[in-house]
């Protein structure tokens, strides 16, 4: 870290404790960097008012090791963008102190600039009072793509997307920082190559001792990943509400309707529908709600490492056969082709839960295909793996939806408001179960042509 003998940089975080101190602090105060780090700032700077300064230029008294005191000029920069309560104190001995009215950069010791310059995780740059870029650190170059020579001197508005410029957002940001001291936002910004990213921005006005505006500092963080994750979570929550609302309200409407019908008949003195019809219907509706709760809970349970599976050796052909048989024997109008082979297919696994996987896959194949089409289930040995492939000739899954089908509550876009029934939890459950068995599940699909789901599980070696 560069620092001349009468310059020091202190970075302060966590309730005023020093986290970085440059070598200059030693000559000023007689304490090494190690000795200073972790100490409260008040052990170094004696003026409480100066310690509480948020940003700007102040003079302060610092104590030295011999109990003496020295007068210094300080530049205090609030670096909110670096995290809560992060401040930098740049100190310059008053003996060779700065004159009032010097430009902002010249008032900062080189140590300070070196620190800022080296930060690559954050874009940190300064603007002059008109909003033109005056310094540009490594992080700004990395995040935004401009080298210092390309951007210094240009208006910071070029970092905004065109529609934001049309709405005069850059001017409004400067105005807010000018009026209130700082401007904070999470918004889209533009890279040099024209691509966009989500930025967390803190723009701070820098004023001289006399209060005149010298310029601005901006700290920007690329929060695209966090932003996307948040959007995804919101989307998941929206889908959860949408699907559970529908799946719970329907059986409730059935039961409430039956009760309403019964009440109406009793009040009118008319004969009620046969009790067995009423009971069977209400029973069925209540079971649907109970099933729904079970399915939601099971989808969480299988992802919980604390829930143990009943792992036993068995033949995967039995698992597949048992789960597929009800469909083949039932009244489902599909042409089933089930090929399990003659060779044993030994696995170690939870028979019931692996069965659920194949039930779900075949149920999906039936649900998303029409009468008369073929549904295939085939088990093959694939080296050290056993592979089960479930094929249908149904509506398929649009390519853009494929990466998300294993998320809970997902509905493919080609359903367009049609109700496939259920919670949209099946594939998520399948993946959790397969992964708990150290296996893998993946999907190939062509919209309008059909879907092929592969399940690969480790073969139990004799």
């Amino acid at each position, binding site marked *: 870290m560069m620092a001349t003998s009468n310059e020091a940089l202190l970075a302060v975080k966590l309730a005023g404790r020093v986290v970085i101190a440059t070598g200059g602090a030693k000559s000023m105060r007689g304490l090494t960097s190690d000795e200073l780090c972790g100490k409260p700032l008040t052990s170094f700077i004696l003026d409480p008012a100066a310690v509480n300064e948020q940003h700007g230029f102040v003079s302060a008294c610092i104590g030295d090791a011999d109990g003496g005191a020295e007068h210094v000029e300080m530049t205090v920069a609030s670096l909110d963008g670096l995290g809560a309560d992060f401040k930098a104190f740049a100190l310059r001995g008053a003996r060779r102190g700065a004159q009032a009215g010097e430009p902002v950069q010249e008032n900062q010791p080189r140590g300070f600039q070196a620190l800022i310059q080296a930060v690559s995780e954050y874009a940190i740059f300064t603007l002059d009072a008109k909003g033109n870029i005056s310094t540009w650190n490594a992080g700004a170059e990395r995040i935004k793509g401009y080298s210092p020579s390309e951007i210094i001197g240009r208006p910071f508005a070029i970092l905004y997307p065109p529609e934001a410029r049309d709405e005069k957002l850059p001017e409004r940001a400067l105005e807010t920082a000018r009026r209130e001291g700082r401007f904070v936002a999470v918004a889209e910004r533009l890279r040099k190559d024209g691509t966009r990213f989500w930025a967390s921005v803190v723009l701070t006005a820098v004023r001289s001792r006399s209060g005149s505006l010298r310029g601005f500092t901006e700290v920007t963080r690329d929060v695209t990943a966090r932003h996307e994750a948040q959007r995804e979570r919101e989307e998941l929550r929206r889908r959860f509400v949408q699907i559970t609302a529908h799946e719970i309200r329907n059986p409730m409407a059935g039961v409430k309707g039956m009760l309403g019908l019964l009440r109406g*008949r009793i009040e009118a003195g008319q004969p009620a529908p046969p009790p067995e019809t009423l009971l069977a219907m209400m029973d069925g509706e209540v079971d649907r709600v109970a099933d729904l709760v079970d399915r939601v809970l099971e989808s969480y349970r299988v992802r919980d490492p604390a829930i143990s599976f009943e792992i036993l050796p068995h033949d995967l052909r039995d698992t597949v056969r048992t789960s597929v048989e009800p469909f083949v024997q039932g009244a489902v109008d599909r042409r089933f082709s089930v090929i399990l082979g003659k060779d044993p297919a030994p696995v170690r696994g939870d028979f019931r839960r692996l069965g659920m996987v194949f039930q779900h896959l075949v149920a999906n194949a039936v649900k998303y295909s029409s009468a008369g089409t073929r549904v295939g289930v085939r088990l093959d040995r694939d080296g050290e793996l056993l592979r089960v492939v479930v094929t249908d000739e149904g509506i398929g899954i649009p390519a853009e939806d494929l990466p998300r089908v294993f998320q809970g509550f997902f509905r493919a876009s080609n359903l367009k408001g049609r109700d496939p029934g259920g919670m949209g939890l099946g594939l998520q459950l399948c993946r959790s179960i397969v992964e708990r068995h150290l296996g893998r599940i993946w999907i190939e699909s062509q919209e309008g042509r059909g879907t092929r789901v592969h399940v690969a599980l480790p073969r139990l070696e004799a």
Partner: protein
Amino acid sequence: MDPVLVLDDEPVIRFVICEALRDAGFEAQDTASGQAALQWLAQGLRPAAVVVDLLMPGMSGREFLEMLRGDPRWFSIPVVVVTGAELSAEVYPAEGSYQQLVQKPFDLHELVRVVEGLVSISEA
């Protein structure tokens, strides 16, 4: 008297709505699919009103209403939408394609009153 057409993929809901309408003196006819309903209409069925669910397998309620309102013969049939869905742009039927929306679970007698009100307007 023209029947009220009840279109919902949930058999219990179809049953209770039809029964309650009959108790109130209506005739009721029900089906689980939009395609079947459109076929009946094409064959000359003139319902006094339609009660329709939105989220159904095959043809959705919204698609059914688009077909219904796209044909001048069926333009003036009053429609009550009955839905358990949280309404989103995806499932919401076009404005003007229905007269009333009832959220599931509904009060059966309230639903019957809604149908009575619409039928009396369309007959007036």
